[in-house]
């Protein structure tokens, strides 16, 4: 354990209940800068809910989420994004009626207010940044294609690209390789490894093989609580984890 490193995200005692059912129950989670954390766990463990709580989509019953020493609970989604948190959804969530270029442009972090939006101009920096990100996500040849005609995997990448445009310090990805071909997985793993430099990443993933290739650390959730935490190796051999997965 490298306790010297500084944490960018502190989650403490986070709890949310829906009509009495505790989907996340007293969760404590700490993520370092430059860390790529993977959260795994059986269905209904509360993985997606944790991401929802961090990014403000769901309000917790109690607990706190500190990001760069700032409390995120109570902020609305866009405010949390502006603090530097990016979130990708489980099903690819891009603007199908906009082109790849426009998808990225819309994600560029300026002209976000109504007036700023009216005054927004496509400056050389914006264009350069879009091209740079498009290249990163393997879509530089498809800039003028509408989102709707991209393949499933390309949509996933585009959404990651949209996050990158925002230059977040924390990226949260919900099953980024679901539905991808083996080749695309390969490229995605490389992409994730590249972008994890200089920022923290939290990923939810089911594919253990993929997890073992990218994860710095793994957290296992079960019934809204942390069952185990550590390297993939440690977690894989944890008897409680084995029991949960087999018993499931």
């Amino acid at each position: 354990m490298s306790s010297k490193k500084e944490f960018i995200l502190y989650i403490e005692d986070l709890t949310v209940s829906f009509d009495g059912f505790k989907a996340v129950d007293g969760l404590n989670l700490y993520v370092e800068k430059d860390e790529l954390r993977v959260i795994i766990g059986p269905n209904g463990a509360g993985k997606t809910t944790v991401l929802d709580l961090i990014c403000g989509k769901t309000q917790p019953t109690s607990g706190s989420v500190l990001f760069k020493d700032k409390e995120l609970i109570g902020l609305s989604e866009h405010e949390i994004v502006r603090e530097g948190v990016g979130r990708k959804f489980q099903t690819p969530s891009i603007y199908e009626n906009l082109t790849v270029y426009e998808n990225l442009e819309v994600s560029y972090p300026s002209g976000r207010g109504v007036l700023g939006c009216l005054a927004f101009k496509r400056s050389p920096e914006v264009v350069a940044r879009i091209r740079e990100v498009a290249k990163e996500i393997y879509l530089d040849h498809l800039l003028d294609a509408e989102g709707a005609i991209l393949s499933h995997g390309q949509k996933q990448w585009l959404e990651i690209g949209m996050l990158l445009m925002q230059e977040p310090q924390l990226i949260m990805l919900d099953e980024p390789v679901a539905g991808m071909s083996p080749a695309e997985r390969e490229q995605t793993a490389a992409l994730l490894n590249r972008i994890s430099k200089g920022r923290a990443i939290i990923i939810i993933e089911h594919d253990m093989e993929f997890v073992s290739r990218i994860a710095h650390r793994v957290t296992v959730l079960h019934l809204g609580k942390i069952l185990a935490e550590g390297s993939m190796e440690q977690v894989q051999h944890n008897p409680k984890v084995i029991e949960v997965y087999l018993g499931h």
Partner: protein
Amino acid sequence: MKTLFDRVFGGKHGLTSLAVLALILLAILPLSLDIFRLNLVGKYLTYAFVGVGLVLLWGKAGVLSLGQGVFFGLGGYCMAMFLKLEASDPISTKIQSTPGIPDFMDWNQLKALPAFWEPFHSFPFASAAVLVVPALLAFVIGLAMFKRRVGGVYFAVITQAVALIVSLAIDGNQGYTGGRNGITDLRTLLGHDIRSQQAQYVLYFTTCVLLIGVILLLQWMLSGKMGKILLAMRDREDRVRFSGYDVSAYKVFIFSLAAALSGIGGALFVLQVGFISPSLVGIVPSIEMVIFTAVGGKLSLYGAVYGALLVNTGKSLFSENFPQLWLFMMGGLFIAVVVLFPNGVAGIWQNLTDKTSRWFAARRKAPATAPAVEVNVPVSLETETSKTP
């Protein structure tokens, strides 16, 4: 990046639409119609201001308001208050027990002009109020609703209730608002008789020019980042939020803008028709304005203008010749537009031009190079909402 010219006029295609509309409004109609019919057209065009606002709000931002009549009416009332004060000078009202105040106040035993009427002596104030009062109300309603993510049917029902409340409140405060009769017998604007033929021509052209100006302004706005954000919001509102945008702020802005535009329409209505009454504020006119927009095509700014013209001309002609049939027609039109032509006249036109241009393209190219691959991609934006389950 598009040039300013492209953005305002919408390129070659947009320029054609503009030219056609300008030709119809500024040349063909004034030359072919007598002043009575032209004045009617002018009245219908004031509804088109509400229509373009609804294109923005409903078509582009995906929020259907059933209370746009309220904003139309408020704009109208602001203008009517000014005109009424001008018409109520102490000499022409000397028969009243309190000369110098509007006649309906006198009938309701008011002895002095209510304080909120005072500033409407000023034309600049009244003109500003035409825009600001509707926008402000929309801002307050929008802020409360959109912050809590009320949308869809709920928003429609609540705005409908607001329309009912405002029309009842105007009804119920007869001394201050003219009640059910509204504010009538408006004669002059800054000394010029608004009922003279000459004035009606001036008002007609003013309406046309303002309307075209509004359309160009909106085209500029929609062709920029705002248009993309609105499209993105309709597509995936959540994603926009997670791209760091305050979605509610955008909706509030669009709602307020649509309200201000409706206000302009209301003010021009009052100038051309000569009165305003709560019957223009309530539920029925509000929903009728939605149907003008739907007929024209809820995604098309120009469509809104044609929709307002077509439906109202139809209403006028039909009710002159077959009064009993008119409601059947109107009802049938609602259903037909919604079920069969969700993008209205503009959608039909679009399909037609797409087909012909594709046909021409196919003729020009060798028949072997099938154009089928890119079919529908450019149209998909227009037909997206029309997919029947």
